[in-house]
């Protein structure tokens, strides 16, 4: 936040660098079931962000001392590919990714019915293939689609979105320059059915009213993203159903001959 620059982030018409209105999201695309090996997966593009999420489990938690006899643990590993950012990132976790992994794990644990799977682990892997501001929201949003694709029982999806402040204006979903040169960023995640916030961070400088406005803006946008998530899952189920239908058809076909 807050690096100085001469870049004008909002033009005279009130439009942002990429032409968006203050409360407009970048384009979001989600595809579920994109990997073969994982139990569930999702690919998400959010502006120039490209994120892949995969889920394995419930499976035996390993190492053993992590096991909880009353419920499953949700372990998320958020990772950035070395080539996903301007300057190559050294492989392996850094402090930032450890923190993000922790808060995403906590947010997902809110909706997963962990009580059904004692001693198990539900492992969520988020790979940022290309980063362009907002990867934690993109990753969490993709991860909850991957969980659903894996058939992990959940109370609801989790949806994440950020809002922030640039040039004294509260705006939705900061882009890269807005993130670098803006005044504040508020990434959050909600459970749409209950409206509860399960992830919430903020950094920058906001008056209370600005903070509340930003939160409301991001929460509203989350409901739009929720529809995109559900649509991706619907399309995925259609494909799966189609495949199953094909299998039944060809079995019947075979039975005839």
């Amino acid at each position, binding site marked *: *936040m*807050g*690096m100085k620059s001469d870049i004008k982030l909002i033009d005279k018409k009130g439009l942002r660098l990429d032409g968006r209105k203050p409360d407009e999201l970048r384009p979001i695309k989600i595809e579920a079931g994109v990997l073969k090996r994982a139990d569930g997966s999702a690919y998400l593009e959010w502006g120039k962000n490209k994120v892949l999420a995969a889920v394995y489990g419930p499976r035996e938690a390993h190492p053993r001392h992590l096991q909880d*006899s*009353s419920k499953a643990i949700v372990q998320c590993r958020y990772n950035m590919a070395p080539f996903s950012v301007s300057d190559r990132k050294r492989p392996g976790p850094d*402090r*930032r990714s*450890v*923190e993000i*992994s*922790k*808060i995403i794990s*906590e*947010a997902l*644990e*809110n909706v997963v019915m962990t009580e059904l799977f004692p001693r198990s682990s539900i492992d969520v892997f988020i790979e940022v293939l290309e980063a362009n501001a907002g990867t934690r929201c993109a990753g969490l949003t993709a991860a909850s689609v991957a969980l659903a694709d894996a058939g992990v029982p959940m109370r609801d999806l989790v949806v994440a979105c950020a809002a922030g402040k640039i040039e004294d204006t509260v705006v939705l979903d900061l882009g890269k320059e807005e993130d670098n040169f803006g005044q504040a960023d*508020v990434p959050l995640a909600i*459970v749409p059915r*209950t*409206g*509860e*916030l*399960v*992830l*919430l*961070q*903020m*950094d*920058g*400088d*906001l*008056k*209370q009213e600005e*903070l*509340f406005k930003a*939160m*409301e803006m991001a*929460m509203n946008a989350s409901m739009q993203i929720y529809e995109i998530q559900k649509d991706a899952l619907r399309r995925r189920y259609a494909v799966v159903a189609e495949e199953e239908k094909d299998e039944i058809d060809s079995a019947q076909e075979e039975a005839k001959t």
Partner: protein
Amino acid sequence: MSQETIAQILKEYIYQSLTEKKRTDGRELYEYRQIQIEPGVIEVAEGSARVHLGNTDVLAGIKIATGEPFSDTPDVGVLTTNAELIPMASPYFESGPPNPKSIELSRVVDRGLREGEVIDLKKLCIEPGEKVWIMFLDLHILDYDGNLFDAGALASVAALASTKVPASQYELGDDFQLPIKNWPVMTTFAKIKDVTVLDPSLEEEKVADARLSIYTDQDGHVRAMQKGLNGGFTLDEVKDMVKKSEEKGKELRKILMDAVGGA
């Protein structure tokens, strides 16, 4: 009884008390434990402060050296924050490299110092692009009885406010007091079922569903926030805590500035 059953009973007990607005240690819902701030306890460090928040005991120390600035900010000094949850402080802390808990602590404390602009880092440039003052802030957790966030933030600001930059040692003029610009303080709330409390003790942390830490500055602006744990907050709950954090932040800031003789 299993660990889980015990935790469940403890949770019910604490929650039951809270519904009657009582805490197990006798505090009000939005009351801090006793706070004691001792700046300058480590002579060999350029700055230091020990903070007791009830039985939670945190020591912050600052070492200063010269070094190169980051290439994208050539004219500002560098502040690096690290936290060690040493095994002395709790039977559940282990030796070894920083784990997610200590990394989150140091990053959240650091975020508030940075975003809250506690120091004017521009004044710590020696030669643009070449040489700046580099500050290492180390949080050493000595005794863990809950709410390391607020204790760590207090100790950090107090240590910074007590810091002398050792310029003469580097033949860069006279030593000078680190210029404090803002006084951000962190206030942390825990939600146990549907009751929120301020400054959770270890016992309360153990049964809490959700946690929210809010950094405010002396103008009541919010400078950093961090939610934790797998429970959720409603928007109204957050609004309520943000408002309380401004008020409680003022109390904390007074204690802090009194202790360090702040402006």
